[in-house]
């Protein structure tokens, strides 16, 4: 019989995530997938899970889970208190959760999104090759609710564990390298200088679709609508209010606002862990 995980407390927003479903953008299907992909990968590696095993991604307030079999889990990404039936347990390394015990994933002490990997992975039915919840288009499992029951996959044989897992600390200041294009010429030369020199801050309205920013408005030289065009992960789109939005994994596949530059994918993991108010510096290069 399949092992199951009952959601005791779903938290503010907890979703199932894996590496997403790239390759369907031409049908209007976002890529989706874990926002802090390295954290998910490390949690899976510590359990001997395959890299495409699905995990849970929490948002600020954690969650609580009860397995019906004894399972091994890793909670990583944003740091938070971890408990098993109320007793403190390890963050960032394997934790044994006995059958019927409650794994508590507390509110974050730093960062935004914690990842809960379970040996064997979350085994919900994949959609277009992925188990990820896509909040823009509604593909994949709905965000977790109290009382949901999630199937688990068969665990791998116990892996050799690294002595210390290198979990990066969330950024005190978020540095986002930016490669100009494809629509830089829609903006004044001053706008690019502003973007590269001013300090922006992470807006509290950020979500899995985009990291919204607060800061100086970027002025356009061209007005009017851009005919809809394909958008890449990390695209820095500038809506009419002039405040750049960095597209994260649930971003729309096409859009009509100009993209001044693109942040490379490896820099987006830190963006996923930057709390509201974190200063942002864009660096050209």
């Amino acid at each position, binding site marked *: 019989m399949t092992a199951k995980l009952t959601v005791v407390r779903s938290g503010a927003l907890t979703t199932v995530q894996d590496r997403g479903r790239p390759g369907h953008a031409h049908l*209007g299907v976002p890529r989706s997938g874990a926002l802090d992909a390295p954290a998910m990968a490390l949690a899976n590696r510590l359990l001997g899970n395959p890299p495409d095993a699905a995990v849970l991604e929490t948002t600020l307030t954690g969650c609580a889970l009860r397995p019906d079999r004894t399972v091994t889990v890793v909670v990583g990404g944003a740091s938070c208190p971890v408990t098993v039936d109320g007793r403190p347990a390890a963050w960032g390394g394997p934790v044994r959760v006995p059958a019927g015990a409650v794994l508590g994933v507390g509110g974050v002490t730093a960062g935004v999104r914690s990842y809960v990997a379970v040996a064997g992975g979350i085994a919900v039915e994949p959609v277009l090759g992925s188990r990820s919840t896509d909040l823009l288009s509604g593909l994949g499992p709905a965000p977790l609710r109290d009382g949901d029951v999630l199937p688990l996959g068969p665990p791998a044989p116990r892996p050799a564990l690294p002595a210390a897992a290198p979990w990066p600390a969330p950024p005190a200041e978020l540095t986002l390298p930016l490669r100009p294009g494809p629509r830089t010429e829609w903006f004044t030369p001053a706008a690019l200088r502003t973007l590269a020199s001013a300090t922006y801050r992470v807006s509290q309205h950020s979500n899995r679709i985009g990291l919204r920013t607060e800061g100086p408005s970027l002025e356009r030289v061209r007005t009017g609508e851009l005919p809809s065009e394909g958008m890449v992960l990390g695209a820095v789109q500038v809506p009419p209010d002039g405040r750049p939005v960095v597209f994260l994994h649930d971003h729309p596949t096409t859009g009509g606002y100009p993209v001044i530059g693109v942040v490379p994918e490896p820099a987006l993991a830190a963006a996923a862990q930057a709390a509201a108010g974190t200063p942002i510096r864009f660096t050209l290069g």
Partner: protein
Amino acid sequence: MTPSRFAQAIQSPSAQVRPAGRHALLVELPDAERTAAFHAELLRRRAAGTLPPVEDIVPGARTVLLDGVARPEELARRIAGWDVPPRTADEGAAVEIPVRYDGPDLARVAALWGVRAEEVAARHSSYPYRVAFCGFAPGFGYLTGLPPELHVPRRDTPRTRVPAGALALAGPYSAVYPRATPGGWQLIGTMPDPTPLWDLGKEEPALLTPGTRVRFVAEGGTP
């Protein structure tokens, strides 16, 4: 910025190839027709195995995005040298979409077209359409084919809910909503059973993929 890197658009007689991050390029064409021809050429070359691996080929209104490319600069230079033939006459059968022309904006669209409401069905269903690109929601295709004099603006106030199956117009585009969403387009009809538009039970879940030809078939007279 190092000059050796693909940082500036590459101009060719037929296209402008723009950088879009480390692993993508955006090819901009002069018009929708040449965008369709370029998209068809990409699919041909991909099928023939002469295109380097590309994860996503995403057409837009005047562009095609190539995302997930190992060496975008090299591909950009190659593309700039392509001689893309005009799109050949459409081959194969068109997808037929049955429609009742009974939308709440039918009278408004009729007024904009300068025809009686009863005539919208015959006019709209008389043109052949083509999926220019997808976006907005899975399976939502932007269909071109309406002549310019029949293009209509979006509604001033978007609806908070447009039902699944609504046939809608905005600018040069016609579309059928695969599911209920907010929307600002003018609603002129209804596809009675919209489930084939996005069916995850099928290997190819989208009925309307870029390049697909479409005909609307008016059902059961006028309301």
